[in-house]
């Protein structure tokens, strides 16, 4: 660039070839600063603010706030409705993760072997691209008691009509299916990119040893895609905890609060009952569960550094 510029010590250092560990000063801070500020304001500060809120209680009449320690959490876990929501959340996440991973691995293996791979890869990713509200709107209509696609299928099969969102079991089942449909495509893509890296030599060696297809999958494919497996799993789990509009627009948390998961409880407490302190306590519960799960996923399935 401009060579006439006075040469700073920093440039001298870099011209000497020592680009790592020598440059000091404001330059790198200017580069990373904007990103750090955005993240602190939008994510880091809110986490601390949320924790603070969860340890306090406000009185809407006097406008005063007092420290209550773990009082909000004791109230939460003392309420049967909350314990049931916690259970429903775990069912939703476990269902989404288990079925989602089976679908992701199965679909990725099909795509990996299919002709016109790129075309199908794009088609199967569409459900993940579109908004959660669009997903929920489409599935609500699919399972609508009047003129839905599910009715077309059940009547074609000669089965009795099912009111899918009317019973707790079927409502949760449909919501898990919606999650799998809309979230797992991204996991499929991740697994698919992992399959592309599996060494063909390993398959050949396994074939020579007379390994069955199942043995090849278990001893060659799975260990080779371990990092992608872990990422796909963590992604599914996070996305499942974030499911909000899929529930709000289909069951609204019903029937009988059977699909009222933590995200919905959090929103209702915060914006319908206007109890920010209790909502913040739900936030902390969500955070802790996700942290514990992330750590265990990485421990269980994380990339093995030694290989």
């Amino acid at each position, binding site marked *: 660039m401009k060579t006439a510029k006075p040469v700073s010590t920093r440039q001298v250092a870099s011209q000497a070839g020592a680009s790592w560990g020598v*440059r000091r000063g404001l330059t790198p801070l200017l580069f990373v600063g904007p990103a750090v500020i955005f993240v602190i304001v*939008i*994510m880091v500060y809110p986490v601390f603010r949320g924790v603070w809120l969860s340890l306090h209680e406000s009185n809407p009449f006097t406008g005063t706030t007092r420290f209550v320690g773990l009082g909000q959490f004791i109230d939460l876990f003392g309420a049967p409705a909350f314990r049931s929501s916690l259970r429903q959340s775990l069912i939703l996440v476990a269902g989404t993760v288990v079925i989602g991973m089976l679908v992701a691995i199965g679909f990725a293996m099909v795509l990996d072997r299919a002709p016109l791979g790129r075309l199908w890869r794009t088609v199967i990713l569409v459900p993940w*691209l579109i908004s959660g509200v669009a997903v929920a709107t*489409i599935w609500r209509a699919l399972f609508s008691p009047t003129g839905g696609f599910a009715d077309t299928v059940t009547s074609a099969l000669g089965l009795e009509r099912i009111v899918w969102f009317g019973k707790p079991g079927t409502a949760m089942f449909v919501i898990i299916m919606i999650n799998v449909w809309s979230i797992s495509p991204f996991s499929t893509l991740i697994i698919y990119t992992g399959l592309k890296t599996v060494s063909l030599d390993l398959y050949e060696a396994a074939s020579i040893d007379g390994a069955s297809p199942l043995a090849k999958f278990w001893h060659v494919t799975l260990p080779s895609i371990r990092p992608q497996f872990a990422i796909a799993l963590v992604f599914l789990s996070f996305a499942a905890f974030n499911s909000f509009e899929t529930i709000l627009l289909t069951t609204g948390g019903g029937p009988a609060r059977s699909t009222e998961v933590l995200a919905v409880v959090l929103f209702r407490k*915060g914006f319908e009952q206007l109890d920010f302190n209790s909502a913040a306590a739900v936030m902390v519960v969500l955070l802790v569960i996700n942290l514990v799960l992330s750590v265990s996923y990485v421990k269980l399935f994380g990339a093995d550094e030694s290989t």
Partner: protein
Amino acid sequence: MKRPRMRNRRLGIWIPLTLVVLWAATPLVWALSASFKTRSEFAKTPPLFFPENPTIEAYQKVLGDGGFWTFARNSLLIAVVATVVTVAVSTIAAYGFARYAFKWRHVLLLVILLPRLVPRISLIVPVYDLMRGLGLLNTQFTLMVVYIGMAIPLATWIMIGFVGGIPRELDEAARVDGATSWGVFQRIILPLAIPGLLTISVLAFREAWNEFPFALALTNSPDVRTLPYQLFLFKDTLGILDVGLIQGFTILSIIPILIIYIVFEKHVVAGLTAGAVK
């Protein structure tokens, strides 16, 4: 990159492939088909999959209503600004993290990356509380800032992977020619990181274009309303659900993100392979 071992399995692949594509496509095709049905066709038992008398009435109604264009403009403005700022800020930050050693580097890197462990929906109450305190509720600016802040951790992580993959010797050569830090970024890093830029652009645009819970919490007036918010409101505001109209609106709202994805598909998949999966 044809794999020889696949050839003999080609025939047997079509059945599972059909099932995979049917699973992904059926709900979308159904929604598309519903958007062309007449109102009376929804009342038929058993329900029809394809309309007998296709009509574009739903699209005429949606597009003829000024509201749709306002909401589409709002969504587009918010998504474009959020994407541009996210990409700019994350790429420059990735350059700083990948190429410089400085005081607090590890701490700041953790500040950027640890929030990836936070489920976004959980922050809705404190973020609302913050924006209310700042008097910034019900503005497009607020949604932009929130989407930028939430997109940066992943975008920066992916870009660090990309910038780290660019040989350091190129930086050195440019510096010998007298380039400043910013000059190296502009002339060396930026052109070589374009696949990464496209990846994080598509991801950031998708997030901002589709986002709903924060829009619901932080805005309420029609002049700042986004498309997903309006689609959500259809549930309550129409006395009788006009399924055709709603599906038409749904289809129209997903077309822009589909186009963007299809145009950049190759880069996004390559980018995710190279950057995110590390």
